């Protein structure tokens, strides 16, 4: 079983650990949970994008 943050290492032994994107986990809270059986891998990495037009204001 997995969600959009973690996979069980036991159920997916070949999964490679990925660091959390800094905007997803700004305070490192999720990274602290990813110990033991829980692993954050490519399978449950959700990327968040925004579409913009070149030359538009850089809103941050």
């Amino acid at each position, binding site marked *: 079983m997995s969600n*959009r943050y973690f996979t069980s290492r036991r159920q997916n032994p070949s999964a490679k650990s990925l660091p959390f*994107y800094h905007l997803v986990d700004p305070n490192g809270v999720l990274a602290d949970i990813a110990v033991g059986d829980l692993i954050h891998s490519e399978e449950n*990495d*959700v*990327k*968040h*994008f925004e579409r*913009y*037009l070149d*030359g538009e204001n850089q809103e941050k």
Partner: protein
Amino acid sequence: MSTCRVPRNIILRPLVRYRRMDPTKFKTGDLVEAQVSFVVVPLKGGGTKMMMVLRALTLLDCQQSMVIINGKSRIQALTHSYLHKQDAQREKTKLAFMPSSRVGTPLKRKVGYGGEDTAVIETRRKFHAMSVDEHNN
């Protein structure tokens, strides 16, 4: 005379680009694009199970949610000028009963089909009552 004529549409069309975004910037009413994977996993009993896994979410257009946010501040500004001379208690009461104050409330959508319209339920009940089954009649 050496005028270089470049097709206008090439110059004027802005390039669409994508950049990583803070996930908390998604608001209700945004137009988004979701990229999903269909993953099939084996089950203990021998069968398989297909799951839809969210891989990426892209904000395409936030104009609709911007209308909500702008509308909210506009209503607040209007009520403030209108009720400027009223005391705070009356302002509070009026704001609660003003029909336009509903515009400022964020959109809420129900996921799934739990709370169906009474019209839908009523129609379904009527269909049942028609008993179109030929074997019974």
